[in-house]
């Protein structure tokens, strides 16, 4: 698990810089400014407070303190700090959410058996209504359903 900032940042999008277009990187990325386009990195991504990404994000691990308007997929750890604001779906193997983080979207955990089953049966991910939820019997009000 990688929840701290790596020592070597290879790409820095500073606060006074605006990036437009799909941004691909092989190394660690630190975003302090504004990116209008997809961001993809093989390594660690950090979005600092005040930074804004307006498209989807893919990374090995990510720490979000700024705003992301798009889906986020982290192969390993995704950390949302108290100042994070996400408008989009998130997928991660390990998820850390600090109190105060705002998430408007669905959340899915990568690498769990349920997700793998759902994918293997239908060839695509099931929608929420297709998934078999198994709540404890004590919590189900059967009369209300009938």
């Amino acid at each position, binding site marked *: 698990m990688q929840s701290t900032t790596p*020592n*070597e*940042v*290879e*790409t*820095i*999008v*500073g*606060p*006074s*810089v*605006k*990036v*437009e*277009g*799909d*941004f691909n*990187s092989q*190394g660690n990325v630190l975003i*302090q*400014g*504004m990116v209008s*386009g997809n961001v993809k990195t093989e390594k660690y991504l950090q979005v600092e407070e005040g930074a804004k990404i307006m498209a989807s994000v893919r990374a090995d691990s990510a720490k979000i303190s700024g705003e992301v308007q798009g889906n986020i997929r982290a192969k390993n750890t995704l950390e949302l700090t108290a100042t994070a604001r996400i408008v989009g779906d998130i997928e991660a193997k390990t998820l850390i959410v600090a109190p105060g983080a705002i998430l408007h979207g669905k959340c899915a955990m990568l690498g769990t058996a349920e997700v793998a089953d759902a994918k293997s049966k239908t060839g695509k991910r099931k929608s929420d209504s297709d998934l078999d939820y198994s709540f404890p019997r004590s919590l189900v009000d059967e009369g209300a359903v009938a």
Partner: protein
Amino acid sequence: MYLYLYDASLKQRQYERVISNLETQLTDLGIAGKIVRLSSLLSPKQVISEEVRRSKELTTVVIVGDDTAFTKIIQQVADSPVTFGWVPVGPKTDLAERFGLPYGAACAQVLSRRRVINLDVGMCNQFYFLDSCHIPLSTVTMSLGGSVTISGAAEKMECFIWNVPPTDQSIMPPGYTPSPCDRQLEIVLQPVARKGLFSSQLAPPSIFPFTEARLKLEKSVAVEIDGNIVKESQLKIRLLPQALKLIVNKVRLAND
């Protein structure tokens, strides 16, 4: 076979002794070769291509001169199919020190040991650069690989591209170390947050690795390419990975 290119400035009397000692050392080590004394009328590119054409045994071209002479020659001949050596002689040998090359005759030992490394070379418009490229404060719009456009939100930016780490590393952003062996160049965009009467306050920089970039500047500015100044308003900068074979001393260049 070795070809030695002597910079024109070495004709001065103060260098006679250094050159004489160097030639003695080279002869002792059995690596003496043909000497060509460069002048303003003699192009190093022409000399090298002529010598390569004349003798197929020519494998090594050794430049004898200071940083300015070396970078000026390399700007023209970096794509030549030979291994380069460098004997630093002259007033400014800071770049040579970064490659671990000792001054004057002492460098003959390094040449004879022949530790060759392949170095990345940058190309800014038609000029090669080995060390660095600097664009003064201007309004910059940059395109990386044709797919990403980067622009300053409001203020002007100063741009630096370092291939070899500078001697004074405090001028670089913290945590950033360039390497001439990593098969990529990085551009550092340094905006000025507040400009006072006597000093400027620097804003946090941006760093983008690239292999090809196009820069559009608001107006024509004096761009410094390895110490030489050219006035440009549009720049095409690209990387020639591991294009230059250079004999160096045992020295640690970042990531090599």
